[in-house]
């Protein structure tokens, strides 16, 4: 008995010692060191592993002494890895981040990048980037903080895609207005495919579709509701919720839309020709990546696809509004041992030889203007690329993200509630507004 008590004491002492050695919620020790060892670590969820290795190879061609250790995760796993590393003061030198809440969470662990950018690209470096990328890079910074803790690597629009093979066969027109959308869906019904495939299981997809609708009704109103200068219960936003509901009640979306995920199922179905329209974004052009072999016929040179903007809503803006923003941005750990090398790699991947390799795969749109793939596999692919990068991306005014994960979740939940019939548009708007008030204090 006595022996058991002693063993218990040893275990308790061990636990106590360990508990005191590393407590939850303590501030991490972020001492900066300088000097260069010529090696860096990079962790992210994007670009994919194969492309990242090509970017590293391109950088090493000009910098043969540099060593870059890269690990690419799935997004949820990456969040776990990054949080664990930040908490244990073992941040990778370069990290992939999303703008807004995620960047803000790690702001204290990141170094400001404007000096690096200025040193590399000159004083007017911001002009190299699409305006929405520069705007979103500082999203959520405290009012007095003008620093750039990340710089955009890839940007995107959110929009719709049409399967032109189906449209041509049915002599259908790509819809420009809500009424045309309804008419086109009715025209395309009855086939083996979904006229409008809405993979609404994913919260992010529900939100970007809603943001396109809301901005087409009253451009910019959502963001006013977000900063409390307006309200989510404004009749125009309630109307936006109502139009979201109509996607389900008017039979525009396919049956069971709220149970279908965008990746892999929705994307696979669209690529297999099982849908005439789908809401995704500019990144869909990656399906025609010329470095891949065995592409499905529709994806070969983008032969079977056409991007278009969400149709206008009756009584709303005369033209469809462009919604988009940063896909992935890069940051440098504040305590990196090699800030110069990290800056060199980061700027190379954004606008140098590494960036060229990245863009050659059509992974998404470059964050900087004037950077194009070295090879197009068809005129259609080139035409779509030009539409996305020259016509649309410079005009993107509205963010595809809300500022906080709480609001992203609240909006996603409200849209899900509407889709399943558990919430009316009014009730959903009130629920989102209540959460907004909580977030804004």
């Amino acid at each position, binding site marked *: 008995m006595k*022996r058991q008590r*002693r*063993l218990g004491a*040893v*275990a308790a002492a*061990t*636990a106590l010692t*360990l*508990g005191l050695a*590393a*407590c*939850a*919620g*303590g*501030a*991490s020790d972020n001492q900066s060191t300088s000097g260069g060892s010529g090696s860096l670590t990079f962790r992210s969820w994007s670009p994919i592993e194969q492309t990242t290795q090509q970017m590293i190879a391109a950088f090493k061609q000009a910098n043969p002494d540099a060593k870059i250790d890269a690990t690419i995760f799935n997004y*949820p796993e990456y*969040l*776990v890895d990054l*949080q664990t590393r*930040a*908490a244990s003061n073992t941040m990778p030198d370069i990290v992939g981040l999303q703008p807004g*809440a995620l960047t803000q*969470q*790690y702001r*204290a*662990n990141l170094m400001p990048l404007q000096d690096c950018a200025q040193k590399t690209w000159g004083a007017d470096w911001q002009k190299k980037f699409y305006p929405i990328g520069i705007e979103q890079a500082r999203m959520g910074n405290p009012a007095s903080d003008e620093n750039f803790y990340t710089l955009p690597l890839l940007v995107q629009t959110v929009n719709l895609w049409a399967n032109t093979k189906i449209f041509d066969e049915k002599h259908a027109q790509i819809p420009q207005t809500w009424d045309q959308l309804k008419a086109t869906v009715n025209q395309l019904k009855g086939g083996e495919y*979904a006229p409008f*495939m809405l993979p609404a*299981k*994913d*919260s992010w997809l529900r939100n970007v579709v809603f943001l396109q609708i809301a901005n087409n009704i009253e451009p910019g109103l959502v963001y006013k509701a977000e900063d409390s200068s307006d309200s989510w219960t404004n009749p125009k936003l309630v109307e936006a919720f109502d139009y979201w509901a109509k996607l389900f009640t008017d039979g525009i979306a*396919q*049956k*069971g*839309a*709220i*149970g*279908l*995920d965008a990746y*892999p*199922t929705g994307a696979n*179905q669209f690529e297999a020709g*099982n849908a005439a329209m789908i809401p995704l974004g500019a990144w869909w052009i990656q399906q025609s990546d010329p470095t891949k072999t065995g592409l499905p016929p529709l994806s070969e040179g983008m032969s079977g696809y056409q991007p278009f903007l969400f149709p206008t809503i009756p009584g709303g803006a005369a033209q469809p509004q462009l919604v988009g923003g940063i896909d992935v941005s890069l940051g440098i750990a504040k305590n990196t041992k090699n800030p110069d090398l990290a800056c060199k790699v980061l700027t190379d991947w954004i606008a140098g030889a590494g960036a060229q390799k990245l863009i050659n795969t059509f992974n998404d749109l470059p964050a900087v203007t004037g950077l194009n793939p070295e090879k197009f596999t068809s005129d259609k692919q080139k035409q779509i690329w030009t539409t996305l990068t020259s016509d649309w991306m410079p005009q993107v005014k509205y963010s595809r993200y809300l500022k906080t*994960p*709480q609001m992203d*979740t609240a909006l996603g*939940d409200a849209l*899900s*509630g509407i*889709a*399943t019939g*558990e919430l009316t548009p009014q009730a959903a708007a009130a629920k989102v507004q209540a959460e907004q008030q909580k977030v804004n204090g």
Partner: protein
Amino acid sequence: MSDHTVQKHTAPREWLAGTLFLLPAIVLFGIFVIYPIVYNFQASSLDWDGVNPGRFVGLGNYTRLFQDPIFLTTLKNSGWWILLTIIPQALIGFFLAMLLNEKLRGRAIYRAIFFIPAVLSPVVVGIVWQRIFDPFNGVVAKLGRATGLDFLVHGYLADPKTAIFAAIVVNVWMWTGFSMLFYLAGLQLIDSSVLAAAKIDGAGTWRTIRSIIWPLLRQTHLSLLLLGIIGSLKTFELVYVLTEGGPNHASEMLPTYTFKQAFQLQSVGYASTISAVLLLIAVISSLSMVRAFGSGFLTGDEK
């Protein structure tokens, strides 16, 4: 020197040697079991994003938790999951084990086929079943359209009323082979002479199963019950891939909600509170079972 004196001198040395032998296990237990638990409980008292310094809120997270309707949904779903997973899995697994314990041609192949789902990745299973259940293009819906059975043409994963039950069906499909394997192992341990004696005494098949085989598999039932409860409380991948806990949190489980709070909503303190409650439920369930049925089913002893 008397025996008593020798004992007195050797006892501390024995104790020291024993402790030294146990030390590696104690240290590992401390690092990998005790420390995370202490850390988790400490984190549950913070308003903390997991990266920046947290703010002490005492029991505030616990108060918030019991007013959180989504948390209450996760508890209800865990209850359904335990009930509707363990019983059907055990009954079907037992039935399959009885069937495949007979001298059947190709018995090993059948056993392997029924066990395959248990070794598949839950992510793969989730993706495949999401497609099977897809009311637009899935196999179940197509079957419904072809046969006129309209109830099959329904978005079971998309309907808040049925999503959790659809996920449970997939889980039962996945793990029944595991139960079958346990019962097969249990059946091998039953003394054939007992069964022969029952036969001589005139017991029919049903009577033999009900009065002899089923009671003799008590340890297997209890082991499966305990594993089932713990497995149900830990369910994550399958639900996350099938429904992401939706629609509108209808199929949310404790681990999926913990993950969302910790890594999507950056509320590690609140997520730790959910984990702490999960841990308490698991410990109380396990201890209650040990108290009710004795520890024999864990150790294999007849206690």
